[in-house]
């Protein structure tokens, strides 16, 4: 156990830079490393990832390990797992942090089972227990109705972290660090999974995860038209439209706009929840919003226990006047 040292952060990049998630992980990792008196390192796997090494250092990494191959351009379990395992073998970290992203949710459990250790998923808080020096991992369970604090007795301790739960360090481009290229002998032919087709369907407009304002609708919206009204509000406020699961099931809005435990996690300045009850699974997706507003005709709806401001009325009667006044004030 004592041979494992330091915190290793699995960083992802998109759109020419580290993802916000990666910077948040480095922030969390730096605080854990400081508490342990150990190093913070980063690992980047893919094609062209050396472009992001300096950025990882600017956000706190002391060493950045790179596994770079053209055939690693898109995520695939087997080769990425092989690459990560090789880096972990060389680095022997005590703690490994990944984002609760499509990649992190895949790699973390695989890594845990391969290394005979435990992974703890979707953590919203991380700290080092001063007595045991072990990582205390807090995560929502029961759809967000409860919180659990878990600890792993084995090394490395692996955790995936929820988006927007941790703060990044201030970017410091004067920070110095080491970039280490790791060669991993991956035979592309040995990979069992064959990708036949891949299609991106990015929604137009402001990205949910980046929107300052999110206007969301639930089952109560009743139809695609209901969502058109929300889109109008989002347009005035330069925000994005989100939804709970039922509207996505009913095709009133695209699946990519789902917010919640199995959808996207957003952290806007303003979250307007219209015609949705506020079930924990959905609340999990926006609970860190600064100001939460609810419009629902049911005064007992759970959303009113979560919102800061609310109107108890049918949204059909509220939205026209709400939109008109918004245009006057913010348009």
């Amino acid at each position, binding site marked *: 156990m004592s041979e494992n040292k330091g915190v290793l952060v699995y960083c992802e990049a998109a759109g020419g830079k580290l993802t916000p998630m990666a910077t948040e992980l480095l922030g969390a990792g730096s605080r854990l490393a400081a508490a342990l008196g150990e190093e913070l390192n980063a690992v980047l796997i893919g094609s062209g990832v050396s472009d992001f090494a300096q950025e990882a250092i600017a956000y706190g990494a002391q060493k950045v390990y790179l596994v770079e191959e053209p055939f690693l351009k898109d995520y695939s*379990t087997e080769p990425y797992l092989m690459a990560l395992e090789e880096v972990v073998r060389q680095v022997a970290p005590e703690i490994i942090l990944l984002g609760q992203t*499509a990649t992190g*949710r*895949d790699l973390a*459990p*695989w890594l*845990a*089972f391969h290394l005979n*250790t*435990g*992974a*703890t*998923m*979707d953590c919203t808080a991380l700290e080092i227990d001063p007595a045991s020096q072990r990582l205390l991992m807090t995560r*929502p*369970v*029961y759809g967000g*109705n*409860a*919180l*659990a*604090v*878990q*600890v*792993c*007795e084995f090394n490395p301790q692996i955790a995936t972290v929820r988006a927007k739960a941790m703060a990044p360090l201030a970017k410091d481009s004067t920070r110095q660090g080491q970039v280490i290229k790791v060669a991993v002998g991956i035979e592309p032919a040995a990979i*069992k999974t064959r*990708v*036949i087709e*891949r299609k*991106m*369907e990015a*929604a137009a407009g402001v990205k949910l995860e980046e929107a300052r*304002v999110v206007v969301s609708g639930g089952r109560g919206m009743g139809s695609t038209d209901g969502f058109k009204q929300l889109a109008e509000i989002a347009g005035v*406020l330069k925000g994005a439209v989100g939804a709970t699961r039922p509207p996505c099931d009913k095709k009133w809005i695209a699946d990519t706009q789902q917010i919640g*435990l*199995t959808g*996207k996690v957003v952290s806007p*300045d*303003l979250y307007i929840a219209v015609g949705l009850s506020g079930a924990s699974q959905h609340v999990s997706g926006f609970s860190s919003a*600064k*100001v939460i*507003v*609810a419009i629902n005709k049911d005064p007992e709806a*759970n959303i009113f*226990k*979560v*919102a*800061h*401001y*609310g*109107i108890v009325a049918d949204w059909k*009667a509220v939205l*026209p*006047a*709400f939109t008109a*006044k*918004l245009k006057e*004030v*913010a348009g």
Partner: protein
Amino acid sequence: MKNIVVCMKQVLDPEVPLSLFKIDTEAKLAVLPKATPPVLSPFDENALEAALKIKDSQPATITVLSLGKKLTRAVVKASLAAGADQLFLLEDESFGDFNTFLTANALEAAIKKLGQNDLILCGIQAADTNAGQVSIGIASLLSMPCITFARKVELVGDSVKVERTLPEGYEVVEVPAPAVVTTSYEVGALREPDVEAFMSAGKKPLTVWNAQDLGLESGITGRTSFLKMYQPARDTRCEIMEGASPEEKAVKLVTKLKDIKVI
């Protein structure tokens, strides 16, 4: 004849009203409310639907595995009513809490005991743990691939072909069978049982295995443990807009949001 295994977990109903939800802080688990019976984890129901869709188009035997400390027969037998061919209950005192490692090992042992299979289906994550690890654990222990977030699953020759959701799109992948595949709701809601299926459910084979039957070493400890489980205090006080009409309330709300400078 294809052999499909579907892992279905009995969980506390995720739709239980918050007022009835309570954590037993000693046991570090939720208390099963008497008013709401447990259910099959929703994504596991989608997994069964994926299996039934395959069976719609080719001969297949669907075996459901359900693991827990104490399984409610009416709940788990709904899988037979929906169309599964046989049900194996893995019941043991040690199968009680959120133990990823033990659960994956127990399911692996059961799957091995069942013999040859072409496909193992699970939901993306259980409605109580929300972790999504056991399916990958099973795949790891069985040395199989695990394809997650499937919205369409097919058995084509000796391959498993899966259309899976990506955060901003989708991809179609193929792996040699057998493989583990996890399903989300896009695969389709579990079909309602027809009267015939409902009636014949009682006659379909139901077997119960315990940890000893599975050859599990006693006292398999999890790789993580729970220090604490609690319900966070809800301290937000919602300011409800007053007004003679919804329109008046709407205007008040906009003014308020402008005042606090959020718009």
